[in-house]
C-alpha cells in the first residue's frame, strides 16, 4: 500500500482519537443507536435531521459525526429484529428469520451476542477492503454495469427459493411473486407510462419500501401479538428464566469462521452495488449459510445461530463497501450515503479523484469514525443486553400501543405523506394474515426491493445487447454471478441426491 495512503490513514486516526474530536463519533454513535432502536426511526432519519443543525460546522466534525451515524445504526436495527421480529432496517430482515425464534426460546442474549461480534468483525472486514481498494476504487466501480446489476438481482431473487423452508416453498415463491408484481406499480422510466397508479400521483414512484416494511413487519407483528393474547414476547418468562449467554453467542462467530468470512465477502462485494446492495447482501449471505450448512439445515428458520451470524456479518461489511461508489464517483450506495453525499457537497467536499488524492486524510477520518462507531455499538449493545432482553418480558399491553404508534409515525416521517401511513396500515393487515396463514413475508419485501433493479437492468442489458454495445459473454463478473446463481439453484438438489446415496 502506498506511503501516502498509510500516512493519510495514520493522520486520520490521530484526528479521530484526539480531544475533543473523539466526542463527535461517541455522541453520534449514541444518537444513531437510539434512533435505530426505535421502530419507525432510523439512522437515515437522524442524518436528515442533522443536516440543518450541522450546516455551519467545519468539514472535520461533519465527517466524524456522519461516519458515526452510518456505523451506529446498523447493529441496533438487528436488535429490534431479534427482540421484536421488527427489523430496524431492511437489511436486518434477514437477521429476523432466526433471531426472533431464538428470542422466543429465551435465547435473546445468545442471538444478540452473536450479532454484536459478527457485526463488529464484519464491519472491520468491509473497512479493510475499502482501504485496500482506495487506489483502484474508480476502476472497481466502473467494472459493474447493467449486466452485473441484473445478475445480482437474479441471484437475490433465487435466494428467495432457498430461504423458504420446504414446507412453505410454494407460499414463499408466491409471496415473492406478489412482491415482484407490486414492484411494477408506478412510472415506467423507459416509456414514461404509468402502471397501476389508479390515477394517484402518490403511486407514480411505486410503493415506498419504508411504509410497506413498517406495515408488514412492525404493525403486523403488533396485531399478531394482540390477537394471540401472548403475555410477553418471550412467552411469560421471567428474567431469571431467560437462557442464553452473550459469550456463547460471540464465540459462535469463531466456531463458524468460514461462514463468517464467506458472509463478509458477500456483504463487501454486494454492498458496493449502488442502491440495493445492503438489502441483498444480508439475504444472499443467509441463503449461502443455508446452502453450505453441512448439518442441521432443518434448524434454519427455527432459531439457528448461523442464521444470525451470516446476515449480520454481511450487512455490516457492506457499511464500508457502500462508501466505495460514494467516494469514487458520488454515486450513493444506500440512502444513508446519499445523505452523506449531500452533506459532503454542502461543505465543499466533492467526491471523486480530488477527494481521494488531496483530501485523503479526511476520507480516513470518515472511515475511522465508521470503524469506531461499529465497534462501539457492538460493545454497548453487549453491555446493555440485560436491559434490552428485559423488553421480551414486558407485558404486550404496554408494548403494542407504543411500538404501533412509533411505526405509524415512522411511516409518515419518511416522506411527509399521509398516504404512506395508509400503506403501512394496509400492509399491516396483510402482513398479519400472511403470518396467520403461514405465508412468509420476507420474500414479498425482498422481491419488492429487487423488482425495479431486475426490471430496469434487464431492459437496459437487452437494449445494449441489441444495439451491439455489450457482449454479455465477455463480462467476467456477470458470468461469475450467473454461475453463483446456478450453483445456488442446483446445490439443494445435488445435496439431496448425495444424502440419498449416503443412506444405507
Amino acid at each position: 500500500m502506498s506511503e501516502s495512503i498509510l500516512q493519510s490513514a495514520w493522520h486520520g486516526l490521530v484526528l479521530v482519537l484526539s480531544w475533543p474530536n473523539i466526542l463527535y463519533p461517541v455522541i453520534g454513535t449514541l444518537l444513531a443507536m437510539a434512533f435505530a432502536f426505535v421502530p419507525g426511526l432510523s439512522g437515515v432519519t437522524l442524518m436528515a435531521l442533522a443536516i440543518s443543525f450541522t450546516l455551519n460546522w467545519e468539514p472535520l466534525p461533519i465527517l466524524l459525526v456522519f461516519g458515526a451515524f452510518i456505523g451506529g445504526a446498523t447493529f441496533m436495527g438487528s436488535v429490534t429484529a431479534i427482540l421484536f421480529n421488527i427489523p430496524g432496517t431492511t437489511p436486518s430482515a434477514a437477521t429476523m428469520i432466526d433471531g426472533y425464534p431464538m428470542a422466543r426460546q429465551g435465547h435473546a442474549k445468545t442471538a444478540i451476542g452473536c450479532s454484536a461480534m459478527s457485526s463488529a468483525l464484519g464491519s472491520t472486514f468491509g473497512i479493510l477492503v475499502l482501504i485496500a481498494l482506495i487506489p483502484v476504487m474508480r476502476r472497481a466501480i466502473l467494472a459493474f454495469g447493467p449486466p452485473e446489476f441484473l445478475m445480482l438481482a437474479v441471484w437475490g431473487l433465487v435466494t428467495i427459493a432457498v430461504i423458504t423452508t420446504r414446507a412453505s416453498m410454494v407460499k414463499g415463491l408466491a409471496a415473492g411473486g406478489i412482491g415482484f408484481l407490486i414492484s411494477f406499480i408506478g412510472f415506467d422510466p423507459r416509456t414514461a407510462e404509468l402502471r397501476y397508479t389508479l390515477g394517484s400521483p402518490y403511486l407514480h414512484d411505486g410503493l415506498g419500501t419504508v411504509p410497506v416494511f413498517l406495515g408488514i413487519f412492525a404493525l403486523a407483528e403488533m396485531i399478531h401479538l394482540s390477537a394471540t393474547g401472548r403475555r410477553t414476547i418471550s412467552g411469560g418468562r421471567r428474567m431469571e428464566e431467560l437462557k442464553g449467554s452473550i459469550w456463547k453467542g460471540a464465540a459462535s462467530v469463531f466456531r463458524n469462521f468460514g461462514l463468517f468470512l464467506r458472509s463478509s465477502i458477500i456483504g463487501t462485494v454486494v454492498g458496493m452495488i449502488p442502491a440495493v446492495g445492503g438489502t441483498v447482501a444480508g439475504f444472499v449471505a443467509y441463503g449461502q449459510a443455508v446452502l453450505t450448512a453441512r448439518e442441521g439445515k432443518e434448524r434454519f428458520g427455527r432459531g439457528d445461530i448461523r442464521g444470525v451470524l451470516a446476515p449480520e456479518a454481511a450487512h455490516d461489511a457492506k457499511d464500508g463497501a457502500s462508501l466505495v461508489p460514494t467516494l469514487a464517483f458520488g454515486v450513493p450506495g444506500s440512502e444513508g450515503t446519499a445523505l452523506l453525499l449531500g452533506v459532503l457537497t454542502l461543505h465543499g467536499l466533492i467526491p471523486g479523484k480530488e477527494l481521494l488524492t488531496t483530501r485523503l486524510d479526511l476520507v480516513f477520518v470518515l472511515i475511522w469514525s465508521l470503524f469506531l462507531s461499529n465497534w462501539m455499538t457492538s460493545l454497548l449493545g453487549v453491555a446493555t443486553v440485560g436491559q434490552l432482553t428485559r423488553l421480551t418480558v414486558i407485558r404486550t399491553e404496554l408494548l403494542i400501543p407504543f411500538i404501533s404508534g412509533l411505526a405509524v409515525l415512522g411511516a409518515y416521517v419518511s416522506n411527509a405523506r399521509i398516504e404512506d401511513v395508509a400503506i403501512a396500515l394496509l400492509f399491516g393487515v396483510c402482513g398479519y394474515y400472511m403470518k396467520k396463514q403461514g405465508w412468509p413475508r420476507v420474500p414479498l419485501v425482498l422481491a419488492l426491493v429487487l423488482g425495479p433493479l431486475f426490471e430496469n437492468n434487464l431492459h437496459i442489458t437487452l437494449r445494449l445487447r441489441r444495439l451491439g454495445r455489450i457482449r454479455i459473454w465477455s463480462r467476467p463478473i456477470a458470468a461469475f454471478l450467473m454461475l453463483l446463481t446456478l450453483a445456488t439453484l442446483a446445490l439443494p438438489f445435488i445435496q439431496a441426491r448425495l444424502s440419498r446415496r449416503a443412506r444405507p
Partner: protein
Amino acid sequence: MAGKRIRWLVPFAAGGGYDIYSRLLEPHLQKRLGAEIVPENMPGAGGIVAATTLMRSRPDGLTLGILNAPGLLVAAMTGETPAPNPATDFTVLGRIVRNHAALFTGGRSPLRSCDDILAEAAIRPLVFGISEVGSTNFINAAVAAFLLGIRAEFIAGYPGSRETSLAVMRGEVDLAAFTFESVQDRVDTRDLRPILQIGTTSLSAHPFLQGVPLLGGPEGLAVRRAIELRRDPRRAEEDAGALIGLTRTGILVGAPPGLENVLFRCLEENLHETLADPAFQAAAAGARRSLDIGRADEAEADLRAAEGAAARFVPVIRDVMSRMRS
C-alpha cells in the same frame, strides 16, 4: 412573518441538488424573515408530488417550495403525467439558478468532438443514455438530436444522472445530456468531455468549454446543420432557442397561487435580498453551487416564453416516446 413557521417543500430526496440549495438558503432566509423555515423532503414523480402539494396549500405565506421549472413545464407540455404548470399554477417568488445543459461523451470515447459525432451518426445511430423518459435531460437529448439531424437511440432506466454519467464513462452509451454543473467534477477529471453546449453563449468560463460549439444562435450548430440538411435555418434557430429557453427557466422558489399582494411583496423582496446576500453567495460557492438569481417578474417572463415556445417541439418528443414504447 416574524415568529411564524414556514413549511418549505423540497421535491427531491434529502442530499440531492434541490435539497442542497434549500439547506443553503434556510439559515439566511430565516434570519431575514424572522420566521422558522422547516425543509420537508417530499420526493415523488420527478417533483410533481411536492409541486402539487404546494399548489394545493393555502396561500397564507406559510408554505413555500422549490420548483423544478423545466421538468414541470415538460410534464405539463407533453400531457403524459398530470402536473401543475409553473407558468400558471404558482405564485413565483424568484429564481435561484438557470440550468445550463450540454451533451457529453466519455473521456475515453473515440468521439471527441461534434464533427466526430456527426461523422459517426452517418454510419450508425448514436446511443444516448437517459434516466427517465420525460426528464429535462431526455428533452435536451431528444431535441438536440433532432436539430443536429442525427439518428439516435435512447436507453432509459438508469436510476439517476450520476448513474447515467457512469454509463457514458463505461462507454456503453455514446452520449448523454446533463447540466454542466452537475458533472463538472467529472469534466475536471476528464472522465466526461463536453462536446456541445445547449446555449447561445458559453455556459461558463470553464477552460474545458473553450472551443465547444454552441447549439443556439444565428451561428450555432442547429442553424449550420439545418443549412447542410436543407431545412429551414430560421425555424432551426427558433427551435434551438425554445429548447434553451426551456432549460433556462431553472430552479425557482414558489408559493401557492392567489397569494395576497402584501405577502407576495414581503416574501419576494426578502428572497431576493437573501439570494443577493454575499454571505449566502459565499456559502453557495463553497458548496460549488452556481447562482443566476432573478426576481419574480423576470422568472415569470422566462416561464411564459418557454411555455409558448416549447410547444413547438412536442411532436418531436412524442415521436421519440412512441418509438421507445413500440
